[in-house]
């Protein structure tokens, strides 16, 4: 138990978490600090390009194996299972309408790429090397939840038209992430050497600035959201990631991932989307209230994972895989 505390404390003095806290406090204190939208979008493009590329280079170096295929399949199954669990829990414990519950559940079936990044950085700090294809797992877990949500909300006059399907499947973040993954796989170590001063060296620094912005958004979302939250909804934002992590740990362990890989699988399952899914929900389930799902995912689950979840998942992954941690 001490080591998890140690991890959690070192996590607390890492610049990334501190910049997130700064943003959160600035927003709660009503400072006018902000990151221009274009800069925020540019950073998110950069982060996804870098992470996809690095993942692809990993594949080029280590090749494809059966565990990778299992990991991808587990990701898809986990995503669907978690979403159904989330929907059942929300229907049972909260007063949310069917459509709202479906929309919230979709966020928890999908993943948060920034949470994934933060976990990767924490793993690096404790010298654990996760499998490089975990970024591909992240990519396959991002969108299916949107389709499941439409199915869950069926019977409310909701139809899936081809246009929505295409828009969802080809949304920008999926395209850049998987595109950069394939580019990394094709251009390999050679390609990485050429652009590593851009995509590797400044990566953590950019992540700090990006997390500052996430803190600002989370803080402002929390203030806006206050009104719409009931206790059961807030509680859901805190226990759902733990359920996700538990299932993620188990499946990561059962398919034979490394300690780092198990921790990332848990993190992905525990995290909730706040970019791709909300945008898709506005298109596909416009009756669902954004004032519930956005603040819940961004203001509660995201900070929870960042500050408490990640060190815990790493610790538990270490125990599960019998590692030295």
């Amino acid at each position, binding site marked *: 138990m001490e080591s998890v505390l140690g991890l959690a404390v070192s996590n607390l003095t890492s610049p990334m978490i501190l910049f997130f806290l700064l943003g959160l406090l600035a927003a709660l204190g009503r400072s006018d600090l*902000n990151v221009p939208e274009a800069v*925020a979008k540019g950073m998110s493009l950069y982060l996804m390009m870098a992470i996809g590329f690095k993942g692809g280079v990993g594949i080029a170096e280590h090749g494809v194996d059966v565990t990778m295929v299992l990991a991808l399949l587990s990701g898809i199954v986990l995503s669907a299972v978690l979403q159904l669990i989330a929907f059942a829990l929300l229907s049972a414990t909260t007063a949310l309408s069917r459509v709202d519950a479906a929309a919230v559940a979709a966020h928890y079936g999908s993943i948060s790429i920034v949470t994934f990044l933060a976990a990767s950085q924490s793993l690096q700090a404790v010298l654990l090397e996760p499998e490089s294809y975990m970024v591909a797992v992240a990519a396959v877990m991002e969108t299916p939840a949107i389709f499941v949500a439409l199915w869950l909300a069926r019977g409310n006059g909701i139809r899936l038209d081809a246009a929505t399907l295409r828009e969802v499947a080809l949304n920008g973040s999926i395209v850049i992430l998987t595109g950069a993954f394939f580019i990394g796989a094709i251009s390999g170590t050679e390609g990485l050497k050429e652009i590593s001063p851009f995509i590797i060296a400044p990566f953590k620094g950019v992540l700090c600035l990006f997390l500052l912005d996430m803190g*600002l958004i989370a803080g402002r979302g929390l203030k*806006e959201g206050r009104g719409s939250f009931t206790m059961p909804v807030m509680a859901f934002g805190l226990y759902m990631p733990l359920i996700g992590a538990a299932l993620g740990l188990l499946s990561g362990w059962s398919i034979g991932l490394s300690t780092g890989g198990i921790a990332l699988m848990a993190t992905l399952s525990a995290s909730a989307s706040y970019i791709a899914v*909300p*945008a898709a929900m*506005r298109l596909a389930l*416009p009756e669902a209230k954004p*004032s519930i799902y956005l603040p819940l995912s961004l203001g509660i689950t995201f900070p929870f994972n960042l500050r408490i979840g990640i060190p815990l998942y790493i610790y538990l992954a270490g125990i599960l895989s019998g590692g030295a941690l």
Partner: protein
Amino acid sequence: MKTYPKKRIEIMVEAPLMNRVISILDENETGGYTVLPALAGRGKDGSWHRDGLVGRVGSVVQIVVILDETRADDLLDKIFQLVSCQIGIVTVSDVQVVRPENF
């Protein structure tokens, strides 16, 4: 200077819906349109501000269409069908244009 009366339709919708509205305008063979970005706003669902927004949720655009009165009603019907269950407001006002073609 001689001017000609037209209608100005302004549609404020969330950015994710923009492409849908534009498809309607295209199908209707409207002469043209212009989309202005909004920076911040408030509606039934609370307030939002563009800076710091990572995704597109919440941010609103204003779509401006200048067109002939004869075509306005038909377009309004179609747009209203889309916007009604969604977030957005539609206004119509009178304007004069200098060149009568293309509307």
